[in-house]
């Protein structure tokens, strides 16, 4: 399990810095470092075996169905990278301890750094490509946090976003590529994939998979044309640049290319895409680096160039080139990290990294100067340093490949020499200046210890390559190639080879270029160059702006358009789906239309048209709508459905009354909003919808059911099973009592919502608006007329009696709790309308909330009661009783349920009314305590 532990340790370590910072910065750094150190030690324990060619595996099953497992393996390639990540990580932790300013939140920094470290270790140890993807994206995320570490700097935020967009986007492409790759092989295990070269390269999906995977690698490793994010990532603190953006994260792409090299490389597509991209990146990066004045930008582009170099070597697809690539990865990591750290030191001490403002620092910062010079010379490829060795070998490979490749490689090397020398010469050489922004001097040991260590490595690898890293290179190369190692030798002198001449040309040329730097810079600056950041911003801002305009335009709140689209969607999908099926027309004979039907149809049509025509006059359209409701009620009567007719009629009355009251608070007229075009559009859609619905209804009514409908059972069982002869009522309270239970809850909720809504309107702006509206209402002189008062008073007991009657007979005759509730509600509503709310309210004590709640509770209790008879919810029981002198009568639990329905209905209607009347009072309606405004039974004086 040591591999799992190695991968997990940095993540565990990420938990502590935030806490340990309370014990001081040293404690924090040491705590953080100890986790990395521990992981490194564990790795080194495994190293000897791996160097012998062993492969160590740890496997934990995770998601079998997906094929994603926490499988790790350690071979030479993994060892090299893990060693680099942890080793340089340790140095960076040390360096950062002294680099960060007192005001910087160090705990956060180390947390992010450790997250990154863990992710990176995870990538290189993954034996499962899906697991690798997880770690891959985690590096993008942690890099985002690290680049944006200085949150107040716009460059940091923009650089972080850009890096995330490019590398995260590449990661998404990689997901696609890896899934394709896994699909080809039939497994997501790296070990299996690595043995499936022939299958992969023969698959038609090879090219798409390759392209997507390379997209991931190229973005991560800053290959042309995705190189632009790396320089902007330099907004991060320098330890981050040294660690992520030179030594490790940007090498993840290289790692993956090396990892998959055995199965992906060797085809023409691989050679041309990878080789040429690498070559272009190498030359382009080197040229741009020369002209950068910012030390870190110079180093960033040099990194781009060196990454291109390694990519190119991998792209050649030969075993020899792969060995060189591996060797250069080691060398580049050592000298480039050291260079970044020295650049950071210069920035830290001189308070600038602008080469134009530097120079002559060798006197002031001799130690830094020494380290920087060693590292930079290695970067330039000067003998006795490790950079020379691998560059020499690279040129050799380039020369073998193609004459043009050789020429361009030499050109790249030439510029590499030039910018390396420039880094030394323009920063440290030259006369001492007196206008540095800070007071440059060598820093304390803590800050230069890490780069110094790396510089020592640069030298000893340079002198004794075979002794120091021979075994590592061999093991790593073996892992990359997955076959016999080719012949190669890591040594200083290879004899007089083409590479030697190319090297000499590069060095001499580089010096010449630097000598004519001023002139070349003038030319460079005069050249029109595309600025990557500008283009990137333009694209992102463009898409974001377009998205905003698109979504804002689509979602502008025009409900009529929303509904038009809804209706059109329903019609189109319905019609198209209809066309896709087989339709046998119905066989029913059309019945002749009687006069009642024709009159009803005409009324409906005219009323509907009337609503369309007069919809802007709200009162009028409400009146016309009520005609529709009445015709539908009559329709139910016509079709012999008295229950439905009763219900529809009473519902109509209640809703229309409530709507009338609500209209009080609304403008009398709807504003004119629709243009002619929109009216046509909506008109066409509505007509189409109407025809479609009509057609559908016709088609359904003209045919017979293929199977007997379930309603026959209801008819049969109503009396024997449900104890009632009124099937509709038995359905409501028994067969489908659960539906009814739900529906009375809907009613109750509606009333509660109305109440809650009106409550919110009684405060603040809404309240003031209400009072404004109130001022505009013209009030009748006789709001509570005598005739109405008397009539409703007389009606009241009759109506309640009718309600009770309807309720009681409901189970066997048309009626029931729902209708009864509505009838009683109407009777009450009439009292309120006749004498005003306050007067009527004062004459009854029940709280409507309580009525609704007890209605629902009674219904629920009736249902739950069945549990005690060991029956399911809402199972009804009924029996017949006789109490002399009455006739035999039936009692059913369904009646209790119906009582719940009744109460919920009454409560809901009345609560809605009460809520509206609160609004009315806020709108300035006066409260009356007499039943009528003009009471003739009293004298005029009394009345006043």
């Amino acid at each position, binding site marked *: 399990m040591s591999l799992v532990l190695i991968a997990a340790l940095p993540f565990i370590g990420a938990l502590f810095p935030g806490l340990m910072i309370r014990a001081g910065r040293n404690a924090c750094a040491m705590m953080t470092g100890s986790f990395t150190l521990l992981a490194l030690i564990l790795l080194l324990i495994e190293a000897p075996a791996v160097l012998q060619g062993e492969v160590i595996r740890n496997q934990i099953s995770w*998601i079998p169905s997906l094929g994603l497992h926490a499988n790790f393996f350690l071979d030479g390639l993994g060892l090299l990278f893990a060693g680099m990540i942890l080793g340089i990580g340790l140095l960076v932790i040390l360096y950062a301890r002294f680099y960060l300013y007192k005001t910087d939140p160090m705990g956060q920094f180390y947390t992010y750094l450790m997250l990154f470290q863990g992710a990176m270790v995870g990538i290189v140890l993954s034996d499962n490509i899906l697991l690798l993807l997880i770690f891959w994206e985690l590096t993008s995320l942690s890099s985002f946090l690290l680049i944006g570490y200085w949150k107040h700097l716009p460059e940091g935020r923009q650089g972080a976003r850009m890096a995330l967009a490019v590398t*995260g986007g590449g990661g998404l492409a990689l997901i*696609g590529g890896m899934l394709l790759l896994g699909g080809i092989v039939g497994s997501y295990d790296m070990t299996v994939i690595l043995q499936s070269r022939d299958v992969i390269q023969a698959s038609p999906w090879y090219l798409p998979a390759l392209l997507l995977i390379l997209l991931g690698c190229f973005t991560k490793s800053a290959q042309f044309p995705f190189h632009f994010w790396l320089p902007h990532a330099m907004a991060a603190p320098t330890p981050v640049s040294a660690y992520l953006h030179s030594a490790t994260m940007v090498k993840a792409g290289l790692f993956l290319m090396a990892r998959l090299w055995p199965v992906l490389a060797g085809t023409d597509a691989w050679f041309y895409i990878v080789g040429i991209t690498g070559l272009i990146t190498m030359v382009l990066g080197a040229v741009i680096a020369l002209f950068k004045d910012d030390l870190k930008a110079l180093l960033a582009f040099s990194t781009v160039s060196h990454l291109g170099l390694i990519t190119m070597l991998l792209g050649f697809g030969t075993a020899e080139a792969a060995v060189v690539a591996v060797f250069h990865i080691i060398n580049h990591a050592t000298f480039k990290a050291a260079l970044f750290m020295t650049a950071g030191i210069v920035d830290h001490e001189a308070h600038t990294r602008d080469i134009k403002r530097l120079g002559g620092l060798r006197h002031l910062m001799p130690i830094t100067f020494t380290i920087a010079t060693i590292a930079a010379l290695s970067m330039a490829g000067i003998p006795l340093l490790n950079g020379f060795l691998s560059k020499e070998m690279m040129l050799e490979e380039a020369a073998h490949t193609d004459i043009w490749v050789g020429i361009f490689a030499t050109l790249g090397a030439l510029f590499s020499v030039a910018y390396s020398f420039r880094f030394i010469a323009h920063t440290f050489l030259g006369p001492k200046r007196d206008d540095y922004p800070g007071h440059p001097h060598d820093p304390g040991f803590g800050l230069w210890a890490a780069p110094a260590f790396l510089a020592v490595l640069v030298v000893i690898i340079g002198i004794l390559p075979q002794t120091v890293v021979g075994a590592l290179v061999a093991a790593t190369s073996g892992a990359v190639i997955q076959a016999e190692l080719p012949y190669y030798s890591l040594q200083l002198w290879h004899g007089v080879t083409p590479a030697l001449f190319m090297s000499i040309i590069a060095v001499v040329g580089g010096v010449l270029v630097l000598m004519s730097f001023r002139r070349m810079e003038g030319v460079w600056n005069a050249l029109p160059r595309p600025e990557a950041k500008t283009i990137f911003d333009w694209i992102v801002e463009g898409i974001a702006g377009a998205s905003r305009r698109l979504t804002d335009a689509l979602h502008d709140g025009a409900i009529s358009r929303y509904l038009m689209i809804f209706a059109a969607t329903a019609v189109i999908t319905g019609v198209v789906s209809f066309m*896709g099926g087989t339709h046998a027309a119905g066989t029913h004979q059309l019945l002749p239309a009687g006069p009642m039907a024709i009159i009803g149809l005409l009324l409906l049509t005219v009323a509907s048209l009337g609503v369309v025509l007069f919809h802007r006059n709200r009162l009028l359209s409400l009146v016309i709508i009520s005609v529709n409701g009445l015709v539908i009620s009559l329709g139910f009567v016509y079709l012999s459905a008295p229950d439905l007719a009763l219900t529809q009629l009473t519902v109509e009355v209640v809703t229309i009354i409530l709507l009338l009251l609500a209209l009080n608070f609304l403008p009398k007229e709807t504003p004119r909003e629709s243009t002619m075009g929109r009216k046509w559009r909506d008109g066409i859609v509505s007509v189409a919808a109407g025809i479609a619905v009509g057609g559908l209804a016709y088609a359904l009514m003209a045919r017979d059911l293929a199977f007997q409908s379930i309603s026959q059972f209801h008819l*049969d069982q109503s009396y024997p099973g449900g104890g009632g002869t009124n099937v509709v009522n038995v359905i409501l309270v028994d*067969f489908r009592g659960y539906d009814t239970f739900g529906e009375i809850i809907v009613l109750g909720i509606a009333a509660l919502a109305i109440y809650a809504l009106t409550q919110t309107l009684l405060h603040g702006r809404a309240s003031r608006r209400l009072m404004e509206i109130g001022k505009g209402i013209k009030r009748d002189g006789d709001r509570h007329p005598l005739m109405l008062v008397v009539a409703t008073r007389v009606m009241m007991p009759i109506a309640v009696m009718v309600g009770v009657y309807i309720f009681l007979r409901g189970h066997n005759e048309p009626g029931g709790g729902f209708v009864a509730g509505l009838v009683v509600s109407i009777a009450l509503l009439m009292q309120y309308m006749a004498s005003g709310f306050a007067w009527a309210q004062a004459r009854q004590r029940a709280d409507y909330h309580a009525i609704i709640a007890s209605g629902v509770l009674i219904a629920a209790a009736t249902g739950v009661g*069945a549990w005690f008879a060991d029956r399911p919810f809402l*199972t009804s029981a009924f029996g017949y009783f006789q109490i002399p002198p009455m006739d035999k009568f039936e009692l059913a639990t369904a009646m209790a349920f119906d009582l719940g329905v009744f109460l919920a209905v009454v409560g809901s209607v009345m609560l809605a009314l009460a809520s509206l009347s609160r609004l009315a009072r806020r709108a300035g309606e006066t409260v009356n305590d007499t039943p009528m405004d003009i009471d003739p039974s009293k004298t005029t004086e009394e009345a006043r």
Partner: protein
Amino acid sequence: MNHLILAPVILPAILAPLIVLAMRHEITLQRVFSVAGSAALVVIAFLLFGQAETGQIQVYEMGNWPAPFGIVLVLDRLSALMVMMTSILGLGVALYAMGSGWDARGKHFHALFQFQVMGINGAFLTGDAFNLFVFFEILLIASYGLMIHAGGRMRLRAGVQYVVYNLAGSALFLFALGTIYGVTGTLNMADLAMRVAALPEGDGALLRVGAVLLLIVFAVKAAVVPIHFWLPNTYTHAPAPVAALFAIMTKVGAYAILRMYTLVFGPDMPAIGTLAGDWLLPAAVVTVTLGMLGVLGSKHLGRLVSFSVIGSMGTLFLAIGIFTPEATAAALYYMIHSTFAAAVLFLIADLVVARRGAAGADVVAAPPIAQNGLIAALFFGAAIAMTGLPPLSGFIGKLLILDAAREGAQMVVIFAAILITSLIAVVGFARAGTTVFWKAYAVEGTSTPAPAQELPLVVTGALLSTMALLVALAGPVTGYLEATSAQLYERELYIEAVMPPVNAEGMPIPQSGTPEGEGPLPPDGPQTALPDGAEPGTVPGAYDNEGAQ
């Protein structure tokens, strides 16, 4: 008889009126009971989950009427899963509403909340298409009440659009049910499944109309473009805990589609075929694209999150629309994930607003808020989840979907849609997050002091950690979901569980325990409801309506 199946519905259905009846003036009492009820629901949900895990489908016959004549509740793996998600989210929302004081800003929060939970659970448990309509009404009207909780101009305006649009959806629901009943003569889902399979060819076209209208109804709830228009404003302006609860509401639509289009209108029905997938897949591509573009284009945190919900629904329907067991299992994983991701994001947006003063939820630079680092970290985590990056469950969900989408012609489209929109979402969230949480440090000024409330932070963190848990337990979770999906596609299991066995005369055999002489025994006589000689699980197509002859 297992009354526990009813508990997720009846418990809140009793609790809510009790709150209205006895506690409506006393917020503390409401809170205690509402939270206790929600916690009890979590326990119940776990018990039910355990029962469903055995693979046995349990049926609860309302009023002791056998299917298809009465209403049945059905507990299978999927419904147990949905109820569990609802209850966990519900508890979180109740605690957040209490901790943040949202519940006291208007009337009846907890009553409406309980009714809402009841409606959602009822929709998940019912085995009857019309009863589904009833519960859609309950959850719609309760959600409207919750949505306009605490009032305010923008909220009320959005509320009107919400309720009007969804009422249009309800009307269409009735059309759809009418059509389906008009063709098949039944509304019980299992019965429907049997009848649809045996339907004469000539009824196919009308059945397809019913099926597709129903699809639209559910797609409205699930906010599939172009019938999603109600969502952005509603979610943006709803009170934060309500918006968080609404994260499960879109899933009600998704659930209903999964249920109906595997059980009743499954791909192997001759008249239906790939009808649902044919409409859903293209719509899903547009949905995920529009949603994520909306994320990129939003200048308001709430709106951004709302669009990300649309985007995630698009992703979800890319998986659902494939209609294979593998893809459905992947869809279920992503559904769990996206529910919590959306909920957490809404809560985080509220945490920001509560500390921000005048800037509100606008994506602009304002002085750093109190607890900026902590809330930024929460946002970072939730954004990772929503955009589908590792290490949270969104990534696993997307991997599962992509893996399942690999077979078939639609692969390239689905891959491209998911991967490209993920990138758009990443950029969108990164822009918003850096502006709100990082750019703040470039602005001078002081912000509102932190509200002295720990609970909202704890709840948000806990809900966020569910997504880490989903990753850690991905093995067992995907195992359960695969079994769930397999159960969905084995329609016979469901049908056999729901439809009563019949004897040689075609009569339902009384269930053991039903005493003689009571309960809904079928009468003697010619009008038997079930076909002669029909066996359990066979199609009742053997009997033709007399009128047809």
